[in-house]
């Protein structure tokens, strides 16, 4: 029986892995034909659920059955902080895209001046902190296998028949094949992301299945389980939270905080959240989809925990295994197998992504800097360094998995949950450097290094050391009496802070020392120009978004050919040529101070391209090796950054002015076509028909003449307007009475108005004092208003003047259709015909109103149109004194 079952399980696992490979392969093929499956916010959100590992499957139930609701903390933290992602994560994603950052170590190293040492430190600590977590997943896989086939999970097997060993091998192959397909990290790992998203769905479904089975088939639903649990005192207590315990509250807060950091900064989370993100916009949906997933996957945890306790009563079954033990106890092998596969999915997704993420860190921030430092590159054949980078990545994946397996085999013996939390605390040590780096320009590299070292020192002392006591490396006395007998240095109760569980205790002190060191050292240390530059680019990333290369500061001598050669070592020649052509295209129309500035941009562009292959710290080293950089002072850096902003503004203005000019030209030429049409047509008629009656001939000729006059007027208006806009216009101010000028205008139009039989009222209520203005120009404005009124009025026109002590107003009313509210500003613009407009603005009022507006502006007055008492009112006001 056992043999049959184990064969079934092995085959199922194999089939599952084949399915995974198949799905990933499919996704890669689709991506190649330009139809990316993963370009969806749902896939993105699901990929984030890699956060839920075997811990969620087995550990949560275990913890819930011992301590009740606090297993929820690691899900509450991310849920509550998800809204903040829109600010923090979006900023990080933007920075990562602009600077080609693909992992946490690169992020921190880049921010603090592209410093390789800092990158290396972050990498080492990440590896130390995460390897145990990977081991945990492997352990969960082998244990769940053992339990499913009813074997004792605690027997250690020799490697060659250890199930976990072969799974590790398979996962290594998967990660290598789907995670290291191309050098350029800009191209996402479509297959892998899709596979992870699938695993998220599968593990959720499987957990709901077993939860549903236990709740509704082994018991009679939620109410049944809870009723039975309430009857037992110790179970009832699991369901309540003791709100009076201050220590508990502090612990809860700390664990919530650690999980907030973990969900963002764990290497696997960063990989999915930032590195594999396809569109920033997907974040919007992820912010609520991911917490929703967390909610759903946890629904059955408490019921299963209670069910386990109720069912197994006093039997010595490890609570972590309830999820498998319960269906097995009822001989529901199908359910158990599905559960096993679900846990398998949860564990494998963590292993895949974490090993990939760590391998990127190791390659970019450990191996390549070492190779470059010791000049080992000369051992590569000169041609394709790019291939070597890929080999190193793959070797790193294998290294990580070997270490994880070794840890599992030789060291691991602690319960599932707390190793996870130890990793959380480790990753939290990066939070101050990252978050501080995003918002505080004065944070320095030395500060970040100090903070991270201090944090990890405390973490090691309070969490790692005690495990080494447990296996005998250190004496037990350190725990009970403190280092060198000093009570205040007890790893579990530093400085007298007792009554906290080890994890929260460690988090408290490590973060405290971390932040203190970070802030204090940053304040007292200075930044290199590189650092300063990066600080600006990070904190103000949205400001510099389209002008990244202008804003990066560099001075020195660089030759395009050298850079091209360097890039060709990593990317294909064709691709390099395309990228450089793109650069040329981008920078065609831009202003540069000089050739040197252009080279600086090219250098930074080359660095960015290389960063997608080897990370930004190594890219910097590589580029520096083929160019000659000059030292810049802090002031120079700031000056260049300011200039970059200026240039960006100027370029924008130039483009805008160019566009406006083109629009204007096309409108004016369009306007001229109309009179030319009449002139041509009429002239042709006159030519072809010499025998026309005299009357008609004269009529046509008159039209030709008046159309030429119309063209002349238009051209003059254009010139006039141009003079106003360029400031060359001259106005002749003298003192006049406004009523007199208005009266003059009225008399010119009297004939037309009475001909059209309009009702006409003139109310010159302004004072008769003399005010300063240009008589001819103001007359022009009033005539313009009257001309419009005559065109649009149906029955009535009113002219009014008014004044108070400081202003005089002239207004013309008509009862025509009026101007819609949204066009009341635009109607005074110099052309009012957008490209696709087909509703024509009334003849002549195009430039007329624009010129009127200029005239009034030159008088420092106001001009406008509004609706008053059912009439359209065009008005302008003049100050009584200039």
């Amino acid at each position, binding site marked *: 029986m056992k043999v049959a079952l184990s064969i079934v399980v092995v085959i199922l696992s194999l089939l599952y892995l084949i399915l995974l490979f198949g799905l990933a392969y499919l996704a890669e093929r689709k991506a190649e034909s330009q139809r990316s499956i993963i370009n969806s916010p749902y896939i993105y959100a699901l990929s984030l659920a890699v956060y839920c590992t075997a811990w969620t499957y087995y550990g949560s139930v275990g913890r819930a059955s011992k301590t009740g609701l606090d297993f929820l903390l690691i899900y509450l933290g991310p849920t509550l902080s998800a809204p903040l992602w829109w600010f923090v994560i979006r900023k990080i994603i933007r920075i990562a895209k602009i600077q080609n950052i693909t992992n946490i170590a690169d992020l921190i190293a880049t921010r603090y001046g592209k410093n390789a040492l800092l990158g290396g430190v972050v990498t080492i600590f990440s590896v130390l902190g995460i390897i145990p977590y990977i081991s945990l997943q492997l352990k969960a896989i082998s244990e769940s296998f053992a339990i499913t086939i009813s074997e004792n999970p605690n027997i250690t097997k020799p490697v060659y028949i250890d199930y976990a060993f072969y799974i590790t091998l398979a996962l290594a192959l998967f990660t290598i094949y789907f995670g290291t397909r191309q050098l350029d990290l800009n191209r996402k790992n479509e297959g892998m992301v899709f596979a992870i998203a699938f695993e998220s769905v599968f593990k959720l479904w499987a957990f709901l299945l077993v939860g549903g089975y236990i709740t509704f088939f082994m018991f009679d639903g939620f109410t049944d389980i809870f009723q039975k649990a309430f009857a037992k005192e110790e179970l009832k207590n699991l369901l309540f939270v003791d709100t009076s315990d201050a220590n508990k509250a502090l612990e809860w807060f700390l664990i919530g905080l650690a999980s907030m950091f973990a969900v963002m900064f764990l290497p696997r989370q960063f990989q999915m959240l930032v590195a594999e993100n396809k569109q920033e916009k997907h974040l919007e949906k992820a912010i609520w989809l991911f917490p929703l997933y967390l909610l759903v996957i946890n629904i059955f945890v408490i019921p299963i925990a209670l069910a386990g306790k109720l069912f197994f009563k006093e039997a010595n079954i490890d609570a972590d295994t309830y999820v498998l033990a319960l269906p097995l106890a009822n001989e529901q092998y199908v359910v158990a197998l599905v559960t096993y596969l679900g846990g398998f999915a949860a564990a494998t997704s963590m292993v895949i992504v974490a090993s990939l993420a760590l391998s990127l860190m190791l390659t970019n921030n450990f191996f390549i800097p070492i190779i470059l430092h010791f000049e080992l590159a000369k051992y590569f054949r000169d041609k394709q360094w790019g291939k070597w980078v890929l080999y190193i990545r793959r070797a790193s994946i294998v290294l990580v998995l070997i270490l994880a397996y070794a840890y599992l085999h030789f060291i691991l013996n602690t319960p599932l949950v707390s190793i996870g939390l130890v990793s959380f605390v480790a990753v939290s040590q990066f939070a101050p450097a990252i978050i501080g780096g995003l918002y505080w320009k004065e944070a320095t590299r030395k500060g970040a290094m100090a903070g991270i070292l201090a944090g990890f020192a405390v973490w090691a002392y309070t969490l790692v050391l005690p495990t080494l006591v447990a296996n005998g490396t250190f004496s037990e006395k350190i725990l009970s009496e403190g280092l060198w007998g000093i009570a205040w240095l007890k790893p579990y109760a530093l400085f007298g802070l007792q009554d906290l569980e080890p994890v929260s205790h460690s988090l408290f002190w490590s973060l405290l020392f971390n932040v203190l060191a970070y802030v204090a050292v940053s304040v007292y240390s200075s930044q290199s120009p590189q650092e300063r530059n990066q600080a600006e680019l990070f904190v103000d990333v949205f400001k510099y978004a389209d002008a990244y290369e202008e804003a990066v500061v560099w001075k020195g001598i660089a030759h395009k050919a050298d850079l091209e050669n360097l890039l060709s070592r990593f990317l294909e020649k064709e691709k390099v040529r395309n990228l450089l052509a793109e650069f040329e295209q981008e920078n065609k129309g831009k202003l540069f101070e000089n050739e040197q500035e252009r080279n600086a941009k090219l250098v930074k562009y080359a660095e960015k391209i290389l960063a997608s292959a080897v990370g930004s710290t190594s890219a910097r080293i590589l580029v520096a090796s083929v160019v000659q950089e000059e030292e810049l002072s802090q002031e120079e850096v700031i000056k260049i950054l300011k200039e970059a902003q200026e240039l960006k503004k100027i370029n924008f203005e130039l483009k805008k002015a160019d566009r406006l000019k083109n629009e204007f030209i096309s409108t004016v030429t*369009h306007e001229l*076509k*109309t009179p*030319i*049409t*009449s002139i*041509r*047509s*009429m002239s*042709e*008629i006159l030519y*072809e*028909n010499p025998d026309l009656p005299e009357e008609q001939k004269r009529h*046509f000729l008159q*039209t030709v003449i008046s*159309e030429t006059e119309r063209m002349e007027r238009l051209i003059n208006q254009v010139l006039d307007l141009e003079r106003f806009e360029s400031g060359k216009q001259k106005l002749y101010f003298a003192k006049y009475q406004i009523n007199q000028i208005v009266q003059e205008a009225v008399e010119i139009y009297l004939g037309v108005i009475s001909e059209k039989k309009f009702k006409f009222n003139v109310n010159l209520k302004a004072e008769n004092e003399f005010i300063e203005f240009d008589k001819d120009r103001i007359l022009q404005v009033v005539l313009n208003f009257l001309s419009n009124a005559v065109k649009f009025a149906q029955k009535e026109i009113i002219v009014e003047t008014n004044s108070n002590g400081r202003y005089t107003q002239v207004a013309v009313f008509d009862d025509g259709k009026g101007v819609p509210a949204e066009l009341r500003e635009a109607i005074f613009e110099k052309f009012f015909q957008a490209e696709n*407009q*087909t*509703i*024509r603005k*009334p003849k002549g009022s195009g430039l007329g109103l624009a010129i009127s507006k200029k005239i009034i502006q030159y008088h420092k007055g106001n001009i406008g149109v509004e609706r008053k008492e059912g009439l359209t009112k065009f008005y302008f006001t003049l100050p009584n004194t200039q």
Partner: protein
Amino acid sequence: MKILIVDDEPNILMSLDFLMRKEGYEVFVARNGTEALESLAQNQLDLVLLDIMMPDVDGYEICKHIRQTPELEHCKVIFISAKSKESDIQKGYEIGADFYITKPFSNKAIVTKVKELLSPINS
């Protein structure tokens, strides 16, 4: 044969009116889209010379109306417009015009086209 000329420029109306009358067609004029629609409803028109940019209803709307009215299915439409970009001309044909002439136009060209569209083979 009845022809409708639609344009908000009176001088253009005047030339086109002269040209069409000289060829012996019965000519109706409209100075804006509204008048055009009225004329279309009242008269059995055979061809419309249609401006596009007009203050109330534009030429595209008029053309669409003609194409959607069963009684007018034999009515020809010629757009006459200052809009002369490739995309404008294409749009005109897509809306359903039989021809598109850009301003300024040659009298001869318009007359030839009108005669062609109204010849017995095409009706």
